[in-house]
């Protein structure tokens, strides 16, 4: 009897337990014993069947990737900014490298008191940081790392699905800002609302142009269509718009208007304390990660690149990660050289500049398509 048989037996007889049924009890006992004895084999079978998805969930687009990226990115950002400021940055923590600084901060945040101010919707309040850091991670499972390394391959639905999941993310800061019952959080939440709507529309139009050029909504097909030439070359306009959009969506410096420290303390994050604040910090990096990967997939050829040492999958993953690292450095560098824009300037940029240019880009792509260049 397998474990499935046991479950079936339990389900069938669970309502009849009051009846003394010696046969059933003996059967159940036997099933339990055989289940325990067979546990290693069951586990092995499970692993054999699900080896690849499990690796993907635990390692690459999944947990380890998110966590390791957050740790390295925070460390790198602090060190890199410190160099720009002619400083050293975190130093003594972790044998004079500062590498363990992030661990120290997170461990400490776990040990801090979580403050619940009066008149606040606590469940709502506490759920938002967790959700806001997991939703973009969910969107990341759609990104193809290789033609056979896609965690959730849903074919031609993958590009719309990414926007559907990632588009939910801005709702959460709005809820969080409302739940915190603080004026600064409230203003920050409304800034989030204004900003994301103005940024998301050009992003969607640009993505549509890419889909038209590739002839499919399937991210895998989009990547394959870029084998000869990256879409960044014919669609330079879209490339530039999407790059700005990535910075806006991940709330990086020229556009970190909702959490503007010098104006709004921390915007919608002001009231979070302890580990909840840690989650909101984490969310910034996860969002950043998801949108940067999407940017690479759409414009920079995704995982395309020369095959190294005959290992196709490994070299594809390597190329994607290499492009990702380069973009991360570039976006962190931007933080060193630009002040923050004002909300009205940002909205002008979004509605009056980026949206018309995105439409222009779309028209250009359509023309290319009609003329048969692509």
């Amino acid at each position, binding site marked *: 009897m397998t474990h499935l048989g046991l479950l079936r037996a339990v389900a069938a007889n669970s309502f009849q337990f009051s009846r003394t049924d010696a046969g059933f009890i003996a059967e159940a006992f036997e099933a339990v014993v055989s289940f325990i004895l067979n546990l290693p084999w069951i586990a092995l079978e499970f692993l054999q069947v699900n080896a690849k998805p499990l690796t993907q969930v635990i390692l690459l687009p999944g947990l380890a990737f998110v966590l390791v990226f957050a740790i390295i990115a925070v460390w790198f950002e602090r060190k890199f900014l*410190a160099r720009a400021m002619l400083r050293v*940055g975190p*130093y003594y923590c972790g044998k004079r490298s500062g590498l363990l600084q992030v661990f*120290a901060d997170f461990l*400490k945040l776990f*040990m*801090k008191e979580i403050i619940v101010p009066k008149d606040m919707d606590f469940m709502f309040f506490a759920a938002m940081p967790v959700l806001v850091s997991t939703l973009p991670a969910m969107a990341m499972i759609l990104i193809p790392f290789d033609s056979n390394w896609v965690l959730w391959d849903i074919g031609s639905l993958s590009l719309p699905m990414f926007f559907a999941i990632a588009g939910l993310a801005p709702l959460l800061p709005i809820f969080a800002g409302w739940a915190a019952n603080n004026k600064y959080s409230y203003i920050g939440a409304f800034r989030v609302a204004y900003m994301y709507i103005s940024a998301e529309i050009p992003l969607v139009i640009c993505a549509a142009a890419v889909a038209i050029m590739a002839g499919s909504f399937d991210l895998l097909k989009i990547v394959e269509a870029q084998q000869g030439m990256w879409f960044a070359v014919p669609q330079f306009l879209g490339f530039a718009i999407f790059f700005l959009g990535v910075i806006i969506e991940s709330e990086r410096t020229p556009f970190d208007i909702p959490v503007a*420290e010098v104006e709004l303390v*921390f915007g919608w994050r002001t009231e979070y304390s302890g580990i909840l*604040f840690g989650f909101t910090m984490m969310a910034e990096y996860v969002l950043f990660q998801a949108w940067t990967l999407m940017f690479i997939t759409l414009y920079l050829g995704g995982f395309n690149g020369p095959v190294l040492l005959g290992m196709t999958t490994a070299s594809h993953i390597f190329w994607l990660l290499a492009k990702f690292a380069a973009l991360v450095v570039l976006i962190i560098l931007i933080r060193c050289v630009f002040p923050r824009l004002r909300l009205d300037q940002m909205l002008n940029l979004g509605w009056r500049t980026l949206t018309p240019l995105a439409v222009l880009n779309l028209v250009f792509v359509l023309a290319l398509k009609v003329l048969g260049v692509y």
Partner: protein
Amino acid sequence: MLEETKEPKRNFESVPGAKAVYSLVDYVAGWARKYSIWPIHLVTGCCGPEFMQTSGSEYDMERLGVLPFASVRQCDCIMVVGVVSRKMAIRVKYLYEQMGEPKYVVAVGACPTGKGPFYDSYAAVAIDEYVPVDVYIPGCPPRPEAIINGMMLLQEKIRKEKRIGVKE
């Protein structure tokens, strides 16, 4: 009268190896909290520029993991920088109460320690009348080395705590 706080019983102390686990946990907790002191952006008085130099490029307090933060909810430590007037002292007390446990106060400069050059002022107060102070840093203004030394003393104090937030 205040009741004497008793050490809560640790139930597993008789289990072999428990002490080693406890000391390891204590060590890791102390280490993490020692290297992650986030003081709040609050400059009450005139030692501000020297504080800025200390967190600035030449002395760089971020080396020790000291990272000034904007909102009091996330902070561990108030650095009372410079002279405290009556009006400000009430605010410092509010901030202290709004901060999450465990929390610490560092008095930077002669004025919060004991009024300093304004000893005969009708408006200045010593901050330890309002909130408990963990480290006093003397000087008017203290040199950056002194401020960093004060922060290192606070780190030692945090590391040596028997339990989180329980001061000796």
